[in-house]
């Protein structure tokens, strides 16, 4: 693997056959296939080392620590090694801040900026935790369960025992189990998967049974957590996080949480609250490009509209992995390869017959990997009430401190469309550029106006979609001497 040149000062865009954004399973797999068949390939990665989120830290942690993370994590080692040994160029710590229809990628790295041009652009920037606002969620001490898992994977950090894990999704149980392997027993699990959702998931169970390894794994984690004596509260609703108040004046950081279940209202003191309500595709790049998106009512998220090869509505631009649809690491690897194969045929590196014969086993494997999804999606569907009826004091836009009440006032004042609301409330205008609020604001508007989320739409995305300093931008066009 060649490291791309660090200082990206250039006056014209360097040309590549394929530029890939993201080095998780989809990106790495695409890069391996592209470079194997002769495409000049560059991978631009926001993170510092390959693996994306799922295989984070895999290339620099010791074997002893990696074993704590479970068998699915270890599967990534082979893939990362193959990527490192491929001839694809890899550029980590790189922020892509603009993409255009001609497949130019503008990015910043090491205090400078650069532009590359690609014949094929594969976006594999993956997914992120679903931001699900609740009262007190911005308090220090509250973080995403995925964030805590990053601290564990990359830095071998575990929280104190005074930690509660709350939400809905397989990651909750995986994380608590991983902590147990490391000798840390946390205080409680608060599971928001509702009884109704569990009942509606039953119709998908027969197909899910075909993917019984996934199910057995989930059951094993739950069993071992119970055996360790960690209380699991089920059917939970209405989560709030409360700060400690010294002399009723100081609002400091997380002190306790409250939630409701069938037996009433619970109040539990804790130092850390790790929340997880599923993951959603990161769509800032496809939004920026103006690709077509669909609202998925089962996964409750926006997805770019892609063909089975991963082609978006823009020529030469693909999405592979969880950034297209939440389908997991195995499918991400397969989708990366499929997008790569399609691009290789388009670029003339392989003929159609070869593409078809290489793609067939991938399509088949991907179909099988999908058996579990409808069941998981229905069983772990996020609590609707929290999405549509947040407490009025709940901060919906973290960057700009905009509450649900502020948003309700803006809608009352007659602002209907999400971009008008953005303009008048500043929701989506802060540093995160709507990553954390885009969906929850859309849910809130949809519910208040009694419209489907698909009709509400999403914020107009404009470049730069990532932080960019004037100094970095200035290196793009060095002074020309006469």
């Amino acid at each position, binding site marked *: 693997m060649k490291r791309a040149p660090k200082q990206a000062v250039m006056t014209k865009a360097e040309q590549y056959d394929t530029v890939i954004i993201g080095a998780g399973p989809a990106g790495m797999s695409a890069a391996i296939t592209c470079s194997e068949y002769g495409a000049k390939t560059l991978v631009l990665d926001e993170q510092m080392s390959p693996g994306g989120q799922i295989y984070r830290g895999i290339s620099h942690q010791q074997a002893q620590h990696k074993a704590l993370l479970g068998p699915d994590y270890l599967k990534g080692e082979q893939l990362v090694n193959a990527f490192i040994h491929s001839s694809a160029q890899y550029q980590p710590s790189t922020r892509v801040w603009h993409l255009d229809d001609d497949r130019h990628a503008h990015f910043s790295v090491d205090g400078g900026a650069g532009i590359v041009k690609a014949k094929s652009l594969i976006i594999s920037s993956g997914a992120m935790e679903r931001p699900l606002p609740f009262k007190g969620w*911005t308090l*220090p001490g509250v973080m995403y369960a995925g964030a805590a898992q990053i601290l564990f994977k990359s830095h071998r*950090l575990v929280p104190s025992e005074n930690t509660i894990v709350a939400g809905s999704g397989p990651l909750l149980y995986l994380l608590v189990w991983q902590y147990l392997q490391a000798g840390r027993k946390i205080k409680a699990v608060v599971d928001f998967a509702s009884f109704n959702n569990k009942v509606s998931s039953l119709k998908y169970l027969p197909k899910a049974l075909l993917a019984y390894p996934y199910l057995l794994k989930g059951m094993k984690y739950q069993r071992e957590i119970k055996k360790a004596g960690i209380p699991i509260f089920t059917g939970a609703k209405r989560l709030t996080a409360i700060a400690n108040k010294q002399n009723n004046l100081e609002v400091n950081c997380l002190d306790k949480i409250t939630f409701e279940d069938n037996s009433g209202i619970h109040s539990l003191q804790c130092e850390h609250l790790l929340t997880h309500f599923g993951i959603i595709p*990161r769509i800032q790049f496809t939004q920026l490009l103006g690709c077509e998106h669909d609202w998925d009512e089962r996964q409750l998220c926006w997805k770019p509209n892609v063909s089975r090869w991963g082609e978006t509505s823009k020529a030469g631009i693909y999405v592979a992995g969880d950034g297209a649809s939440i389908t997991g690491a195995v499918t991400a690897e397969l989708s990366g390869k499929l997008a790569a194969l399609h691009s290789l045929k388009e670029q003339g590196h392989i003929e159609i017959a070869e593409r078809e014969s290489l793609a067939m086993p991938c399509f088949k494997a991907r179909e099988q990997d999908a058996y579990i999804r409808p069941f998981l999606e229905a069983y772990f569907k996020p609590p609707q009430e929290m999405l549509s009826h947040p407490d009025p004091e709940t901060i919906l836009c973290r960057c700009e401190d905009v509450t649900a009440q502020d948003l309700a006032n803006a809608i009352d004042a007659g602002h209907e469309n999400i971009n008008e609301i953005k303009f008048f409330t500043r929701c989506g205008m*802060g540093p995160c550029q709507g990553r954390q609020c885009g969906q929850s604001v859309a849910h809130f508007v949809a519910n208040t106006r009694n419209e489907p989320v698909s009709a509400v739409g999403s914020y107009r995305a404009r470049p730069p979609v990532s932080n960019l300093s004037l100094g970095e931008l200035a290196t793009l066009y060095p002074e020309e001497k006469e």
Partner: protein
Amino acid sequence: MFTRSDDEKSKPVLFYLNGRQVQGQESDTIASALLLNGIATNRKSVLANQPRGPACLMGVCYECLVTINGKHNQQACQHLIEEGMRVETSTEAGSYDQS
């Protein structure tokens, strides 16, 4: 408070946190080093002046903003700690008054 799950010795890195010398390991980001040193709050929110700390640890929430060697609004989770680095958190919204 976050603690290391094992005592595997990695290369120590000394840097400055609000003027005080603290230690992390080679592979620590500023965010993980803050949490390891018991610092849960790194800034106050811009409009309501409320305490904020790292939330996503992967670069999509922009909560973990700190000042690095004089440069403001850097994401702590996207930078590895370096020997002698000066990191500052802020106590008031929009103020960078640490020494």
